[in-house]
Structure formats: structure tokens, C-alpha cells
């Protein structure tokens, strides 16, 4: 269960010492062809993220933050430049190798939750473990634990349409955590929630950060970014600023 949330403003912020290098991006560019036009979504981004970091990626729409997010999440490969994930070269991987990295090393949290509508919470959380090839009993056990960890121990057999928005996002977070990934990638995790529920979700992120997870949140809201320990700002496909946040 989640501990009672401490008052957000005066909370003592734990900053865990950085661990080994997880994400190592060097001079990454990404070009898109949109009709006759070529869009430079990323124009040479260099970024290092270590284990135990809690980072926010910020920027206005069109700044390239979604592209960067897809790149970090191994959903997309760079046009040029290098990307090493846990010192493995991602730029040259096949689709299936990327799928395997995503499955074992990355936990995704989407703005629109992206739960399977006809499956129970438990089954939704089990899904990454199915693709990891875990036997059913182990899957259920781990999924159950992950759901209890986000405070949904009593909602395991509910389907998404029987859950509130906040609860759905909790299921999604449990799903992202269930495989013990190297990083959690959250893309506008509060974008479809009211501000109160959004704040609760961010407190959940704080909580799982303190449990020892590495988190990257993509957002355009300062309030959300303030939860992170580090914030980078993108502008026109380049990193404009990279600094620690804090009280």
C-alpha cells in the first residue's frame, strides 16, 4: 500500500546517488518526411541518464520531446548518432531485439493509459510477463504484487471501464513496474487526469522513485516537472537546458 502522502511542498526530497549509466545518447538526429517536407525532429541531442535518476523532459509541442521519448523507449531508431542502452548499441538493433529490450528494460506509462479494454487489471499487468515467457503462476504472483504496490489490491479483477482514470493509470504504472525495468518512461502521465488525481499519480511516481526505480517523465507542465530531480528542456530539436530541480 502507498504510505499516506506527505505534504508536497515541505516534503524532504530524497535524492538517491546516481548509479551506473543507463542511457547514453550522443549526437542523435531524427528526420521525418512529411509529404514533400523534411522535418528535423531532433538535431543532435546528447544526453546521459544514470540509474536512480528522476528526470523530466520538457518543452513546447513540436520541440521534439515525443521523438526523444520514442527514441529513449527504443520504439524508434535514430537517423544518425549513437544510442547505447545499458552499454548495448540500440541504433543497430532489429525490430525483435528492440522488442526484447522494451520488454525487459523499459516500463511505459502513456497519457491515454493504453490498457486492453476487455482484460482485467491483473491480466493487463501480466501482459509484459507473457511476452517475457514467464509461466502463468509466476506471472499472476508478480502482477498481484505490482497491483498491491500501487494500491489496487482490491481491483485486480476489474476491467478498465470499471475503474476511474486515476485507477487506470495506476494499473498502467503497475504494468510498467512488473518486469523490474531499468527505467520507467512516462509520457504525459497526468495529461488525461484532473489536477487532483494527477497530483496523486505524481505522488505515486515519487513513491516508486523512492523504492529504487529510475523515472523519466515527459511533460509540458511545470508542476509535474517539479516532482523530478532533474529537468531538461527541448527546443527545436535541441536540448536548451539541463539542470537539477529542487527546493
Amino acid at each position, binding site marked *: 500500500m502507498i504510505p499516506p502522502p506527505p505534504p508536497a511542498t515541505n516534503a524532504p526530497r530524497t535524492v538517491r546517488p546516481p548509479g551506473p549509466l543507463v542511457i547514453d545518447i550522443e549526437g542523435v538526429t531524427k528526420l521525418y518526411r512529411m509529404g514533400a517536407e523534411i522535418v528535423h525532429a531532433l538535431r543532435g541531442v546528447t544526453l546521459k541518464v544514470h540509474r536512480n535518476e528522476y528526470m523530466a523532459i520538457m518543452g513546447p509541442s513540436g520541440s521534439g520531446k515525443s521523438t526523444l521519448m520514442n527514441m529513449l523507449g527504443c520504439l*524508434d531508431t535514430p537517423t544518425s548518432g549513437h544510442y547505447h542502452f545499458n552499454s548495448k548499441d540500440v541504433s543497430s538493433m532489429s525490430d525483435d531485439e528492440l522488442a*526484447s529490450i*522494451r520488454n525487459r528494460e523499459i516500463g511505459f506509462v502513456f497519457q491515454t493509459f*493504453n490498457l486492453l479494454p476487455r482484460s482485467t487489471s491483473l491480466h493487463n499487468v501480466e501482459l509484459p510477463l507473457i511476452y517475457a515467457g514467464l509461466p502463468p503462476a509466476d506471472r499472476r504472483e508478480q502482477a498481484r504484487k505490482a497491483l498491491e504496490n500501487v494500491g489496487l489490491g482490491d481491483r485486480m479483477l476489474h476491467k478498465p471501464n470499471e475503474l476511474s482514470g486515476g485507477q487506470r493509470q495506476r494499473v498502467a504504472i503497475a504494468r510498467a513496474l512488473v518486469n523490474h525495468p531499468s527505467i520507467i518512461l512516462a509520457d504525459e502521465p497526468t495529461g488525461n487526469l484532473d489536477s487532483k488525481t494527477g497530483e496523486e499519480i505524481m505522488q505515486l511516481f515519487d513513491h516508486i522513485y523512492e523504492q529504487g526505480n529510475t523515472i523519466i517523465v515527459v511533460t509540458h507542465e511545470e508542476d509535474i516537472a517539479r516532482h523530478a530531480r532533474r529537468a531538461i528542456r527541448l527546443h527545436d530539436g535541441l536540448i536548451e537546458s539541463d539542470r537539477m530541480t529542487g527546493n
Partner: protein
Amino acid sequence: MIPPIPAMKTLARFYYEFTESIRIAWAQIRANKMRSVLTALGVIIGIVAVTLMGTAIRGIDTGFQNSLAMLGDDVLYVQRWPWGPVEDWWNYVNRPPILVTDAEKLNRIIENTPNSLLEIAVPVAGRGSSVKAGDSSVDGIYVFGTTADYARISGVDYTEGRLFNDLEASGGRSVCVLGYDVAEALFPGRSALGGTVTVGGHPLTVIGVFAKQGEFLGLFSFDNQLVMPLNAYRKMFSIRRSTDLRVKVTDKTHLQEGKEELVGAMRRVRGQLPGERDNFTINEQQAFKAQLDPVKTAIALAGLFITGLSLFVGAIGIMNITFVSVKERTKEIGTRKALGARRRTILLQFLIEAVSICLIGGTIGMVVAYAVFLGIHFQMPNFPVQFSPDLVVISMLVSVVTGIISGFAPAWGASRLDPVVALRYE
């Protein structure tokens, strides 16, 4: 690079993905019941067609074998004309008739041949005629005359009475044995024994009624016949061009050897010189089979055409619905890929969905076909249909193959979707 996963683990993973795919497919079909059933309609019709076709062909074969046993499958026919159509009719038309005395000569040869494969030859002369009794009359009865030895080549039982004996036969007594249906029609609800029927104006006393034998493929009934002594028959009708010999072989597993012996014996009977062509034909019931082949081929062709057409339409429908399903769930595909689903996983998922719809169609088709089969079976007991388990297997295989073929293109497309594009899809 990714460390190689041991084979067992890959296999286990494949199994989990497989069961997950089945789960998704059923959830999907349950959620779209009407759509799925409508889509499966083509497959349903195809399976009904292929099953009924198989049922009919198998029924014809079985009916044929049963009917052969009814006729006596150890009997050869010595006749002037071969069964079935002939193009060189001029070769047969001038053949000398088969004579009753040929049977006597043949029997003498058989008796004097040690270890003969032939048992006995019996002359039979027959024609279609009407049979009357009092005010009732039945038409199209096969009326034939033979000797008392007929009992030895026919395995038929009697409902009542008996066949005429040697004395009655050689004396040409006016007695007869009726087929079951003839007796039923002329003497409804009472015994025909001792009754009188008239054939061609000649009165005959009924001394026996054959047991019910059923129809040959539902076309020709063995219960519509009348048998009398040959010597009585020749008083009413000419036997010159209508006589043939029925020759029983001792062992029906050596029918062909018996046939060869019979050809030699008949040439002696007919006094044919070496080098001369046979002036008779040995017919056997297996030859009927060849005559049935065009019927079976026609049924098979019609069935295959209907099956092929409906399966083709069905396959296109399923392909279409799988495309729709992929489109509808583009975002889900993106999510699954983000969570680690490989191309193969997605391919499998949609293939299994298509195959499942086909299997449902196949199962419904089988049930419908079985109902039709039962309907035919109870409404027309004589119509030869037979349902067999291998038809179930064939239908299921056809369904699976249809599913794989029709589902492949959309499933392949789904498996190749770019996760970034798929996730963004609304």
C-alpha cells in the same frame, strides 16, 4: 547484443504467446458475435457443401456395396452385350443369342473340370411387365424365368413360401415367387400364398414371397420383381434375345480367375475356333462401379465448385474482417509492441483470430450438415448418405487452412506496424 535464450525458454514463451492469442481471439469474437458469425457464413456454406458432398459420395459407395451383396457379389453374367454404353454396336448386334442349352452345356463342363472355380450356371430370361391380381395391377415389374438352381445363386430369404422346385421348374408349372413390394401392392395386409396373379394374361399361383431387399441406390428396387419357372416364362414371352446366364464362382475373392475360366468354358460351349473373337460378354457387378463413377465425379465437381466458391468468398470476408480488426486495434498493437510483443507475436495473434472464426464457421457448418444428413436419413431412408468421422477432420483442416490463408495478409501487415505510428493512431 541480446544473449541467446535457451531453446526450452523460447518454446515456453511461444506456448504462452499462443495461449494468450487464443484468449484474445475468443474475447474478440465474443465481443463481436454477430460480425464474426456473418463473416463465417461463407465458411459455413463451404463446409456444409464439402461435408454433404463427402456424405453423398461415401453413401453411394456404401449403398453400392450393400446392393452388390444383395445381388450376390459372387455372380458373373454371360450376356451378348456389355453393361454400359458401347460405341461399336455392330460388333455385338450379330452375336448369336445365349441359349438355355448353353447353361446345360456349361454346367457339364464345370462338373468335369477338376477344382473348377465355377460352381453353377443358371439361365435367366426376363423383361419388364405389369402384374395383375383381381382388380389391382402394378406396372414396371421385372418378370423373369429361371430354373430351380436359381436358389443356389441368390442369397435372398423368403418372407413366406419357397422357390419352385426342379419338378415344377422343368414341368413349366404356372407358379411364381413375388418380390416384397409386389406382394404388398397386390395382396395388401394379407398373405399372398396361394393367390393368383396374371402376367401377360397367364395366371400364376403364388408359392412364395421374397424378403424385403431394398433399393439399389434408391433407383432400382429388387422388391419389384416376379420369378417363375423358365419353362412357364417361355410360354408367354420369347426368350430368344433375352436370355443370359448367371454363373456363381466358388470363391468371390478369385472372381477374376473364375472369369478367365468362364471365358474358356463358354468358348467351348459356343464352339468357337481359336483366334475367333468371343461372341459373348462376361459382365460382373463391379462394372457397375465404373458406371457410377461419372455420377460420383459430377457430385464431386459440383460439390468442389460450391465449396471452392463459398470458401473463396468466405476467405475474402475473413480477410476483410481481419483487416478491420487490425485497423480497429492499431493502438492496441502499438501498446503490445511497446510492452515487448515481437512481430511473430502479433502475426500469431491475428492469424489465430482468423483461424478461430473459420473454426467456428467450420463447426457450425458441420452441425448444419449433420442436421441435413439426419433429415435425409429419416425422410428418405433409402437414399444413400453416410456421415463419417474423417469428414469432420477434413472440414476442420479446410477451416484452419482457409483461416491461415485469409488471415495472413492482414496479420502480416499488423506485425510490421511501426510501434510509434501505431501508438499515435486514434
